[in-house]
């Protein structure tokens, strides 16, 4: 669960983008108050944050960073931000399209599903 905000501020020093969030991950029976929800990217002028499923968001954020870091025009700013957004859209749509239901737990009882998820007997 999350609260986060990103806003644009204009002052004498020019425009700046601010992003803030809380630091709590929860929902799996634990409460963990030391978790990053905002991430800088290899492109120096970009920051991302997330809310929602951490299981989806963390892999996506890491792959965004990998995708930018592996393509110099995206990392050094040669690629325009709008083109970068299109590039990242393709990354997220490709990745999210590859999520499959684990056949090992299809139709399993709740207890078996927990076994598959957590590996506890």
């Amino acid at each position, binding site marked *: 669960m*999350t*609260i986060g905000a990103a806003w644009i501020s204009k002052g004498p020093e020019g425009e700046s983008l*601010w992003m803030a969030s809380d630091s709590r991950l929860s929902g799996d029976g634990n409460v963990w108050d030391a978790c990053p929800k905002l991430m800088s990217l290899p492109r120096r*002028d970009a920051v991302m944050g997330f809310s929602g499923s951490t299981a989806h968001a963390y892999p996506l954020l890491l792959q965004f960073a990998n995708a930018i870091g592996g393509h110099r025009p995206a990392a050094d700013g040669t690629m325009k931000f709008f083109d970068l957004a299109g590039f990242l859209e393709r990354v997220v749509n490709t990745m999210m399209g590859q999520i499959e239901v684990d056949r090992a737990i299809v139709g399993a009882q709740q207890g078996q599903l927990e076994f598959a998820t957590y590996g506890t007997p």
Partner: protein
Amino acid sequence: MVLRALRYRGSTSSWRFERVRSRNFFGPGRVIAIFGDGKPRNRFIYLLHRYLEDCGTLAQDISFKLEPLSIMAAMLSLPPSSAQRLPMNRRPATIGGAPQVFRVFAGAQSTALAVQWSAGGRTRVYLQGRETFEYERNLDVPLVTFNDLRVEIYAPRQLARGNNSHLIRLMVVNRAGPAALEPA
């Protein structure tokens, strides 16, 4: 500066970066994306709206300064509650920890800001949600301090010197806050 929100669009069954525009609710010049879960999100919007109203700047054609950060810190400093009807002096138990903050100047390097935060009766410095160690005191990032709704930002390495008279204060926002945030 451009602010985009990645959202799933059911009509095309795809994820799209959508441009975040100003919210007339706060004022035509105020561009903000608020993300999170329903209850904390709605409470944040309400408190921010009320704060701007109290400051007399609601609906004015000006940009945000650090008001959203003030409200977020104020929310996170409240005691938690799991009540269905959340009291005004409580935060949803689903959010917590120290605020984490990033700043990006146009065309410049994005910067994480450390946060001086009090929790459990002690005050520590946090960076991106993590409590830093003593030997990290000379962090090369600016430091944010909160005092009620007052937000101050100090240049890197300033507080570690232990001499407050030489602090380089970068920014201060100080306003009377909504009465709703005052402890019961």
